[in-house]
């Protein structure tokens, strides 16, 4: 009996409100979904606009210098150049831990990477502060990558 009453109440709500069955299409600002197809995910590449990033055998010094400028303004608040973690992880040996393309995608597509990439998510669990999207341009990102390589001893 109780069940019937409960069902009647629920049914009543649906009926009285005219059963607005309209299913809205996903709005543009809806939360991003988790990885749709884990099988296809390339953990070496991450997710973002870059599919391949070529780096030279030797250092592009001019590029690295540009990267340092961007580092000073946009990155140094949270990252040290040693292996010490500040807000984010230290940058020492980062070019050995990650592929160039992963680094470039992470810098330019932070939010989607943190939402989808297992490695980025693992880092979030340690740091607990989402890396801010610092609106790093493609050129800045490439410079930063070269600066990281310099920091890791590439001559």
């Amino acid at each position, binding site marked *: 009996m109780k069940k019937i009453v409960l069902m009647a109440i629920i049914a009543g709500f649906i009926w009285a409100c*005219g059963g607005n069955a309209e299913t809205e299409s996903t709005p543009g600002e809806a939360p991003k979904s988790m990885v749709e197809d884990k099988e296809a995910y390339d953990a070496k590449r991450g997710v973002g606009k870059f599919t391949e990033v070529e780096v030279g055998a030797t250092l592009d010094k001019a590029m690295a210098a540009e990267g340092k400028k961007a580092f000073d*303004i*946009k990155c*140094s*608040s949270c990252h040290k150049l040693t292996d010490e973690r500040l*807000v984010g992880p230290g940058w020492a040996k980062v070019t050995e831990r990650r592929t160039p393309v992963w680094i470039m995608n992470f810098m330019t597509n932070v939010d989607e990477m943190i939402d989808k990439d297992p490695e980025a998510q693992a880092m979030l669990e340690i740091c607990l*502060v989402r890396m801010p999207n610092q609106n790093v341009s493609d050129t800045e990102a490439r410079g930063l990558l070269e600066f990281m390589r310099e920091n890791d001893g590439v001559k």
Partner: protein
Amino acid sequence: MKKQFFPFISSLAVFFLLAFAGCKPKNTGSAVSGDAAQKAYVPPGKYDEFYNFVSGGFSGQLAVYGLPSGRLFRVIPVFSVDPEKGWGYSEESKPMLMTSNGFEPWDDLHHTELSQTNGEIDGRWVFGNGNNTPRVARINLKTFRTDEIIELPNSAGNHSSPFITENTEYVVAGTRFSVPPDYENGDVPISTYKQNFKGTISFISVAKETGNMDIAFQLLLPGVNFDLSHAGKGPSHGWFFFSCYNSEQANSLLEVNASQRDKDFILAVNWKKAEEYLKAGKGVKKAAKYARNRWDEKTHTGVHEILNEVTVLDAVALKDICYLIPCPKSPHGCDVDPSGEYIVGSGKLAALIPVFSFTKLQKAIGAKDFDGEYEGIPVVKYESALHGEVKKPGLGPLHTEFDGKGNAYTSFFVSSEIVKWNIEKLEVLDRAPTYYSIGHLCIPGGDSKKPNAKYVIGYNKITKDRYLPTGPELAQSAQIFDISGDKMQLINDFPTIGEPHYAQAVAADVISKNSVKIFKIEENMHPYASKGEKESKVVREGNKVHVYITSVRSHFSPDNIEGVKVGDEVYFHLTNLEQDWDVPHGFAVKGGNTAELLVMPGETQTLKWTPKKAGIFPIYCTDFCSALHQEMQGYVRVSPAGSSVPLTFSLGKNSTDPKANSPETPK
């Protein structure tokens, strides 16, 4: 089974009660029909169709709502200080509130007007008027920030403002309170109103690209009260129409003494003619003192200047600029239909609405079909300019907006209703009650050439029983009516800040696509910016201590400062290093006599602090920024005057030392 019967019945009763109440509560006296909730409902994550820019009245601010939801998105500080945003407290924003009387922390913003190009809303700026100390403000709709405020000399009670011409050539401002001009001796008996008091109407030019405002000229007019105005458009472009009351020229108990005459006037101004006189050198330069304050987006700083001259045109002596049209019973609203042919005057105390024809007005002026003069200005015969009267539309018509389909919507204060009527036929088509005593009303684009007439919003003066009681004062209520059909349908109520007067609305995409998300840190030209923690530092200049401090989730650099002394003036120049949308950082210091700062990504703002006693004073971030927001804090040590504690600053030993040039030599 019998035992269970009563509970079943009562449950059923509860279900019916809940089921109906659950949809839309029926409120006092309003007939809200079944699908109203659906029409006003904007699902979570969905955007509203329109922005609604609503004047904040005596709050001095401008509120931005979404339509049809009625959700409040933002309060833009304009004429009043806003400690929440640091407006009027930060060193950068203080100049914006400067006037010829010095710093003024408050004004009364009555009307909003969106900029137009070819008579259509272009989404660049919204203007607001300061009614108390006459000013006009221009708000940038990319940043939703007040970019400019210009003061008006020779003026008081700037009410018939900030209405614009169809290409935003001019914003106008007319005196509601006539006063002796600033260049005359104002120390006169009030009873000499008729001899000494003058009205002025200012035409403020708006630069096409920058929006920069200048007073192009002022028209000198007899002392009356100019109330509201609207520009001609299309065929009547080049003309401006102002309602005026107190043609009795009373200076006391206006409630009675300014309501003596059966008709006051609508003043028709041929501003193209005024431009000709100006070009011909007929303007007289008069000494004046008025402020103009502009926001510099590159330095994130307001710049205040005092201007000393204004050009005045004597609109009585110089013929053919101004004509008066008689208008019944203390006209208030003065509205021009989308075609530019019809001018609707609304007498506050009238029981009819006169509609004037621009074509007939021109003919009457051409034929000198005048009924004498008022204070030297020709008065056009009422009947000669009249298209017709709407008979018995309601009591106390105030304002009219248009739907672009040949219809007008007029608000009626005394009879608390909106009335829809046909302009050509002067026939009432529909009426809807409002709760209560409606003032202004707004149709998106309703004063432009191209209204987007999906809704009409009424802004009511009295709220009474519409909302849960909150003591003697209640939020003023606005009401949204769907006007897509033949009949108005009430779909939503929403509370407003301050007292809304005029409001304007525009389709969301006209504005939203241009909205700025961050200020690029590379383009920050603030003289005290720190672009990166490396540049953060503390510098003493005499008793001034400049703290170049940065913020990023979630710390300040530096966050330990010593060597500040009682008697010092400390300036915290906070640069927010974030480059991500919607990540401002806040800043406050214990014992501050100002307010907080709220610094947008990439921006620098300055808070002045004068410590009064020795001790340790914490600083912290006031805007929850990350999981470690509670850790975003620091300390300032204040020593007694004359102390020898050296000036030092630092950021935790685990962090980049702001003094070191670390990245050069990676370990």
